[in-house]
């Protein structure tokens, strides 16, 4: 559910653009900023930084910041996962990859989370997985 910036309220302070983890926000200083819906993962970090409360969610409500500790991270069930790489292709932060084979001739490769600190908990991977091999678990 991508967020959007209210043009009336935005003063172009640039704070949101600098904090956005997926670089979904563009705009020059003192000009109106816009959010690229394709890149936005609705983490709400920008809303936390916006002094003017100019950022709204898709239902028209004021966007809220979801604390970093509350973002889930994906856990891949290696038994189910076929390594089809749909999640890798979906991950906006490039933190999923297909693992290296464990031994020469290993055919059972699967997706792994490379860096949980970079994961933004957007849950797109879990939604994308066609066979539900990905669960979202608490970060800490």
């Amino acid at each position: 559910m991508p967020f959007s910036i209210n043009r009336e309220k935005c003063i172009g302070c640039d704070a949101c653009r600098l904090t956005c983890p997926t670089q979904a926000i563009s705009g020059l200083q003192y000009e109106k900023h816009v959010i690229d819906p394709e890149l936005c993962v609705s983490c709400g970090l920008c809303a936390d930084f916006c002094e003017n409360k100019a950022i709204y969610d898709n239902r028209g409500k004021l966007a809220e910041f979801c604390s970093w500790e509350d973002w889930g991270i994906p856990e891949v069930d290696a038994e189910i996962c076929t390594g089809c790489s749909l999640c890798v292709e979906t991950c906006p932060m490039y933190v999923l990859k297909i693992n290296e084979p464990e031994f020469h001739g290993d055919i059972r490769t699967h997706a792994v989370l490379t860096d949980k600190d970079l994961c933004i908990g957007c849950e797109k991977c879990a939604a994308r997985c066609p066979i539900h091999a990905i669960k979202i678990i608490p970060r800490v």
Partner: protein
Amino acid sequence: MTTYSGYMGKVILLDLNTQTTCEYPWTDKDRELYIGGKGMASKILFDNLTGEEQAFSEDNLIVITTGPLTGTGAPCSNRFNISTLSPLTGITTSSNCGGNFGHYLKKAGYDALIIKGKCKEHTWIEIKNDKFTFHECGELWGMKVTESQEELQRIMDESRNCRVKCGILSIGPAGENLVKYAAVISGERAAGRAGVGAVFGSKNLKAIVATGNHEVPVDNVAMNDKHNLKWTNTLRKHPLTGNQLPKMGTAGLVSSMQVRGILSSRNYALGQYDDFDMVSGETLAEDYNIVNKGCMSCPIKCARTVNVKGHNVKGPELETLGLLGGGIMNNNLEKILQWNYELDELGMDTISASSTLAWAMEANEKGLWKTGLEFGKITNISKTFNDIAFRRGIGDELAEGTRWLSKKYGGEEFAIQSKGLELAAYEPRRSVGQGLGYAVSNRGGCHLNGGYLVIVENLGLHADPQTPHAKADFCMFMQDLMEAVSLGGQCLFTSYAVFPGFLISKPNGIITTTVNKVIPFLGPVVRVLNKFPEIASFHLWLIPHTKSLHYVTGMRMNLGKFLRTGERSYNVERMTNAKFGVSAKLDTLPKRLTDVPQDPKNPKTKVPLEKMKKVYYEARGWSKDGLPTEKKLKKMKIV
């Protein structure tokens, strides 16, 4: 717009002359009749081509289509299809590719892209949702495939100041220089056959990049997810798709083909190659393969990854191993890996390139055309491939393919092509049904479009490969089935599971032996099913594709309807080809395969083509000229 899920509901017609776009009318009725993929492309070509066009003329169309399953996560559903008028064969061709372009084309909001006209300058196109931007190529023109794709990714990233996920389709130098069998490459996968890359080149179109943020709607999400999981598990348990293909890739066939005598060697003069073990899938797996990879959304993962000159690149498929190994009497696997990489980088079809090479070697040996190319001599091959791509020296003529060369220099009996398209690595004289497939196949000598009967005759099952009995009926059945499978956007390998695992893994068991014995007598049964597929108004567990289509699109679907759609798609392609002069006269094989027995002591080891063709046309309900009758077309709702 569409009422069916699975589709984005938009087909875009792109005019390169005016650089404008408009929506192409494609209705729900069409979706029901042709589903998508190749069938959709064939119908669009059928409606728009008159028979006057030529491959490199401005009015030739390129139709890039996806299936309704593409992007939904169904097993192996990441494929897209490119159809156009081929410069190599002069008739329509379709080339299927597993790269991620199809996925992103749907994310941009389109089911298909139709391209007509010709760019004045060298151009690449950026598609971002409903925005089409035409960019001038500049230095991009002339770059090899990987280099150009990396450069395009860099341009995309730079324009948006972040890493952009996009699907890229591009041609290499071979396509730019109009090599008749140039390929279009998406990622590591190629839409290789019959020269679609050259058509891109003739339109001055280097690449297309698609990106967007649409999601593919699914009709019944809960049931679809359940079905996908079940299907994925079936594929992973099957001896072919769960063990053989991941472990050895298609390359694993080399040794089986050797034992059965169908490994084409020495430009199809022989069916076995003494040094086959040195170029086999086993050796590839043991000594060279790093990891098995697959297209996106694929649980099978048959692609190889090998190291060539410090790069981890895609390894060769069976066809490349067979034709660049025994085909030219070369036992150096390391060289094949390197050539395969070079051909991919130049953007060329490995099958046609190596087959043309083998023809030239034989022509040189027979004194028809002195080129310095010799069987077993591998020092000048890399240079020859480069010469072909840039059309230098003998490469300029080699770039025209075997049909053209054999017309000019003679030696048509050993020009291994049908309708201008070079055959794949399966030697049909010990697998006569496959021979029939090669001859009647819509796009020319193609092993897949021809029905892939070799799996019934030699690999997998072992129904008498020498008898013409029942082959025509099975050929039609397999053609229609494979056609239908590809319509949804899925890989043909998912249809291997049609043969239950126990049949294949116990070739000497009682059940398999009985099935093998019975198959030649099953002709009439299959004939009835071919004629009245409506009787199969159910889902068969061996063919889960029908359920998948039902859950994703919401269309009413059953096995009979599924087969009928495949048949319709096959017929409409045949009708388009008829406009370009295809009839029974062109459904041929070279004399080497029909007149000269593979084993001089066994006169049966050749393809009794005329006999099988006659039965095949009857089975299809076509006239003696090999064309669908008016009645047939009406029944199929094509006209």
